């Protein structure tokens, strides 16, 4: 792959690249931050990055939201509705995971008095 081709590809798939970057940022947050809430924020960033990736993959240049109604002709271009349906599910799942994680953190804090991973390790 030549340099110019690389840049071309980076350019056209810019959304994907951003999504992957966010994924790594989330992973970094998850690994490096000692605070459990921050760790979980990292996880949320990872989730979001994948939603971005999925929803980008359904995009079509100049496409409209896939709602049939007034102002829609036979030549109207619609974006792909499947990714949108998928990320709706994904968001719900992410929210549920977050809810559980937060409640676990509440319990942990009640029991141990800290949310710092390093300190929790010592407590054990």
């Amino acid at each position, binding site marked *: 792959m030549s340099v110019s081709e690389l840049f071309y590809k980076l350019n056209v798939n810019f959304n994907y690249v951003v999504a992957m970057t966010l994924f790594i940022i989330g992973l970094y947050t998850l690994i490096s931050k000692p605070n459990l809430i921050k760790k979980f924020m990292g996880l949320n960033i990872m989730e979001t990055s994948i939603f971005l990736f999925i929803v980008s993959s359904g995009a079509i240049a100049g496409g409209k939201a896939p709602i049939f109604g007034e102002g829609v002709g036979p030549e109207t271009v619609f974006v792909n509705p499947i990714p949108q349906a998928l990320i709706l599910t994904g968001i719900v799942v992410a929210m549920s995971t977050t809810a559980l*994680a937060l409640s*676990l953190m509440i319990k942990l804090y009640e029991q141990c008095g800290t949310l710092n991973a390093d300190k929790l390790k010592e407590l054990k």
Partner: protein
Amino acid sequence: MAEFAHHCPVLMVITFLAGAVLTPIVSKSKKKFSFWWAFFVSLLALLFSSCAVWSLYTKGPISYWLGGWEPPYGIEIYFDYISSITFLMTVLGALIILYSKKYIEHDIKEEKLPVYYTLVLLLLCGMVGFSITGDMFNLYVFLEILSLSGYALIAITEEKLTAMASFKYLVMGAVSSMCVLAGVALLYNVTGTLNMSDMALRLQQFEPIATSYMALCLFVVGFCVKAAMFPVHVWLPDAHALAPSPVSALLSGLVIKVGIVGLLRVIYGIYRLGGAIDFTTVTNFMGWLAAITVLVGAFFAFFQDDIKMIFAYSSISNIGYIIMGISLISFTQPERGYLGMVGGLIHIFNHAIIKSTLFLCAGAIIYKTGFRKLSDLRGIGKKMPITCGALTIAALSIAGIPPTAGFICKWFIVLGAIEFGRGIWAAALLIGAIFVFAYYIKIVNAIFFREPAEPILEVDEAPLSMLIPIVILAISCLVFGVFAYLPLAVIKPAAATILGLPPTYIPPGG
């Protein structure tokens, strides 16, 4: 009847789902009623799953189009040979729910009882759904259902460390789910479809690109975390040891197997069927890691004093067996992987039974004595002979001593590894097995060949509702060892179809 059998797979999921959702409603005034409800639901689901499995083995796989939409457009339930694991899930589910009756009343507050049974049913719902779906995204959704309920079940008691164990499991589990989702997203981008068999077809049509490999890697990482393979096993010991015992039995017996089912679905259901991408590098790598996993799990188990901790580490070791068995695959000659595949699949089955027995026995002992350290449990075998007898049978079985169930798996995996030219894996497995036996003999020594210590002199046998599942499972450890052809009759066609051979395939030499 045929019409009914056609609906059975989906009815299984729906039964668990509706049962779970209705549990808080039916037990609003009388919390203890939730047990009877959950037990009833699990029996109903057992009925459906036996019907579905019966139909599978008489008439072949069931393809069920949800909403009547043909596969690439709608979601398909594909009840094939891999899905027959649902039968195991429903049987074990029913037994474990029966076991929970006394155990959980003792362990958690009464107001939480319906919550417990709801979560168990949801866990089963997720596992069953995961095993029967033919759609990648649906797979992810069910994976989340079962993972979430799994995390919460660990933390359901008030014990101090459970929340931490659960959180650790949750973080690793969530990352692995992310990996699976990312894999689905990448594959969707490459193929433009979510249906598994359609994905396999479409993979052939396009030139293989790096994205497909990456998706495979992400799937493998994701599912291996769920299956607790080395080096991503760190969440397992705490989670499985600290959870209430019936939950440990569910988690160790079934939930980690879900990761294996996922691997089978992806590697064999999509990539092998697609045939365009050579995945043997990945499976080879998996196999080597599995060999390490066997040793690592066995090694660490050796140093534990807590009986449930020992069982938890041994689960890691056994997951190594299974993954070793299913990684023995050659891209061009599928029949070379047959024996290993049979071994891996039968170990899914046998390990589920054996490990559930072990955890349930440990639970019964903890329920009666309140102790979980081996040093406190000396001589307990004289006080609880049936429980400890069952524990011994299961221990022998997991160490692979013939003629128990565990031996069959060891035999097939070793044979498969040798036939595949991977003597070292077989050697690792055998060394691991010796370690396993060494630490189980430690348990048997402590419970049978020592004089009872002061605090356990008053202990007597566990209640009947706990003994029934324990005895049934322990007997099946023996029966499936001696009459190994029973599970093999089910597993051989499964192994053959996974490898793309006809279901009636017979390896050379019989």
